[in-house]
């Protein structure tokens, strides 16, 4: 200890203190401050970049799942639309068929009715024609046969004979 104290040199201590203080001040101003700021900034930058990359990744994932969802929805919608369309088509076809059938039946019915009435009319006309024709014939016949008195008397007699018979 005595040797240590004897070795202690105040001059060296003095210079060391001055050198150290000056060195600290100079280094803080010209080295440590810019270096620490740069390192911190860079680390912050890296952290930010990583964070934003992570966020972008998450966003991408979200977007991807959104897309998938959208796609699925679209697909479902398409399927539903197709289904609906098919159903509508089927219904339309069925309806049309039914309508056509009904229409057809109705038309047939109408035709039938028309035919019937036409037939009746035709029959009635024929009947009229026949009756008028037969009357004409009968008239002509009667005119022919009754043109002389002899034949008229013969007819009357015959008729009277018929009536008698009845």
């Amino acid at each position, binding site marked *: 200890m*005595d040797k*240590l104290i*004897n*070795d*202690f*040199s*105040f*001059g*060296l*201590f*003095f*210079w*060391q*203190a001055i*050198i*150290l203080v*000056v*060195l*600290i001040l*100079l*280094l*803080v101003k*010209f*080295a*440590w*401050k*810019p*270096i*620490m700021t*740069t*390192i911190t*900034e*860079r680390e912050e*930058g890296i952290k930010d970049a990583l964070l934003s990359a992570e966020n972008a990744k998450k966003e991408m994932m979200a977007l991807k799942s959104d897309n998938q969802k959208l796609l699925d929805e679209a697909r479902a919608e398409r399927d539903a639309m197709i289904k609906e369309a098919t159903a509508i088509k089927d219904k339309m076809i069925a309806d049309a068929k039914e309508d056509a059938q009904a229409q057809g039946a109705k038309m047939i019915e109408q035709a039938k009715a028309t035919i019937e009435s036409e037939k009746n009319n035709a029959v009635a006309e024929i009947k009229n024609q026949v009756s008028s024709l037969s009357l004409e014939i009968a008239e002509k016949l009667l005119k022919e046969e009754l043109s002389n008195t002899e034949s008229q008397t013969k007819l009357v007699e015959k008729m009277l004979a018929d009536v008698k018979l009845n």
Partner: protein
Amino acid sequence: MVISNKPLNLFLAIVILTMPFLGFSNAEKDSLTVEKHAAEAGHAATEHKVEGAVKTKDAVNAYIEHHLQDSYDFNFFSDGEKGVHYGFSLPIILWDNGLKVFSSSQFHNDKEVANVDGTFYKLHHGKIYVSDAEGSLALDGHDHPTNVKPLDFSITKNVVSMLFAAFLVFFMFTSLAKAYKKNGGLPSGFGRVLEPLIIFIRDEIAIPNIGEKKYRKFMGYLLTVFFFIWILNLLGMTPLGINVTGNIAVTVCLALFTFLITQFSANKDYWKHIFWMPGVPVPMKIILMPIELLGTLTKPFALLIRLFANITAGHVVIMSLIAMIFVGKNLASDMPISIGLTLFISIIEILVAFLQAFIFTMLSSLFIGMAVQDHDHDDHH
């Protein structure tokens, strides 16, 4: 003081461990060489007469001791046989009835006395005393001179080394800061090595000990101290012979900074825990007060002793191992052992250089963290 025991023990253990090596090499010289290398011994004997050749155990010890101390000259190496030192003299600045500035080369004479404006200064064991023209000193019982010591603000070898290290640190990190500006926030070149170290200090030392919210304010000090100590420790590993962090005045100054920063940034809770420990009975509070108060001093004290002891131990061990070559006489057997062990210890010392800088910073931030953190009274005590 519990923490500081460890490095002291390590220091002692290493010193004790190295003693046998020194002893062995000595024994060899005493017994074997005399007979085996009779011719060489004769040659060596002539060498021994030349003063300053570092060949004996005492000379090695003196050389190591000299290395561990601060110096007024920057010696790269010296030739003991010729008594020539290669290096340069440094300015000496004294405050002795006015400012006195002169070159340390003025001490380079037989008596180690410099005559400055009629006042004589004597260099004695690395210290400057006011003396007379003859350089005579009055010694007390412990061989310490009682002469007046002028206030010494000399630019010594350690001051030059510190300035060099400070310049190096400043240059490295301002260039990193510039690289950021030029490179759009990215390091370039050597900065790629420095940046992880800064992040290491922040993430492993500052944030865990001080806390996410408050660490930023102390980063300047922690980073500066870490790199300054580390660079100085590593400079101590170079053959330049620099030993700054193994100097008690330097570590005292560093620890004092940590102490002052701790005390001045401490919050109310910290002082409350020192003077009136919550959650214990009143008599205990009174007993704890001086203990806690002493604790604030022992913490930085442990810090300064740890750094000093570790670095000094490293230097002593490495120099002792290298000295084996010179003390022993059998070069063929001493050299591989010496070089092998020196290499091994050097690698460990490079680790220690980092470790001690790390521990100093770590403990500084721990002490600061203890002073600034908000206590939850429920979980401890």
